[in-house]
């Protein structure tokens, strides 16, 4: 005598049977019921058509530019107190100043180097793995910092006349080619930040 209740329970699941999001157990229950319930099979036909129709008639092609400009205007107009000011912000700003000063100081050094401008450290081999890296012009300082921190890398020189920096990875063994390849691979995947990277 549970049949009507079972039918209702299964019928309620049919929309999600059609969109493929039921659990395996639920799907098996639905399929067992469909084998002997013509009404639910009709329902599945209708819901399948409805799903196709909803996808076809839903318009997602709106121009983002107008709305985006307005959003950015409103964000710019927000009081600074409402913006996030993480505890590390002051130290980040200080670090940015150091990097800029370092960049200016090193710039002349790079200029005096050979025409590739990359053998700044002279003849002594690097104490750890050193990579040459060029960041994307649009990359933000915070993104670069987070990337370097994720690799436990530190910026040791740069920028060169062609915008190259040198980063040192003290955790890596210079003889561990696999580990170096993995880091290079990681950096190559961050194309929004890294334009070029190579071992020195």
């Amino acid at each position: 005598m549970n049949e009507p209740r079972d039918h209702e329970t299964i019928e309620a699941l049919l929309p999600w049977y059609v969109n493929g999001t039921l659990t395996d157990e639920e799907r098996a229950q639905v399929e067992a019921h469909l084998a002997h319930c013509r009404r639910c099979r009709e329902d599945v036909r209708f819901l399948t058509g409805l799903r196709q129709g909803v996808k076809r008639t839903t318009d997602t092609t709106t121009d983002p530019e107008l709305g985006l400009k307005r959003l950015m205007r409103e964000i710019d107009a927000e009081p600074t107190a409402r913006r996030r000011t993480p505890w590390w912000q002051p130290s980040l700003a200080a670090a940015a100043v150091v990097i800029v000063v370092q960049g200016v100081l090193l710039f002349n050094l790079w200029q005096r180097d050979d025409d590739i401008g990359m053998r700044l450290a002279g003849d002594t081999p690097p104490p750890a793995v050193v990579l040459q890296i060029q960041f994307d012009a649009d990359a933000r300082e915070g993104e670069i910092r987070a990337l370097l921190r994720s690799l436990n890398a530190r910026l040791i020189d740069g920028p060169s006349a062609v915008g190259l920096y040198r980063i040192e990875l003290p955790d890596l063994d210079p003889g561990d080619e696999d580990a170096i390849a993995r880091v290079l691979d990681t950096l190559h995947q961050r194309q929004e930040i890294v334009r070029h990277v190579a071992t020195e």
Partner: protein
Amino acid sequence: MNGGPIEALLARIARGDRRALERLYRDHHGRIHAFILQRVGEPALAAEVLNDVMLALWRQAAQFQGRSKAMTWILGIAHHKAMDALRRRGRDAHLTDLDDAPEPSDEADVAAALAALDDGELLRFCLGKLSETHRAVVHLTFFEDLAYPEIAEILACPVGTVKTRMMHAKRALRRCLERAGAAA
């Protein structure tokens, strides 16, 4: 950026990265706007709500804890913002006669309903006759292809309510389409 591109963008937004917000807007505004438009029905109001949602993301991205999918979390914010907008306009959950539609007629008429589904205008007409809450369930089920627990999370209601709303919406739509298909 695969394996959670929206989650990655939210993490960057939480750090105050405007470019990440721009990227999220450009890549996903269409889906979010489509959901809002289903709720509020008016393009101008939907644009207002979309702006509210994006501002909320800018301010609250750090609150995303990863307990649900990022888009589920975003659509949940969109749901609340849409409800707020409707309340401000004094249009809280208006129901139409379609929501009280009787049981669908016999099985033979499913062919008429299916034929009517091919006509985008008829489908839009019948969807427009549903209440916002019922239309939202249909949209999230068949456009976003979400599971019913995710829909319950977005709409902040029990899963049983999602199923009940879907059942009502289905019957109402089928009835409307059958009539429209028969009249065409």
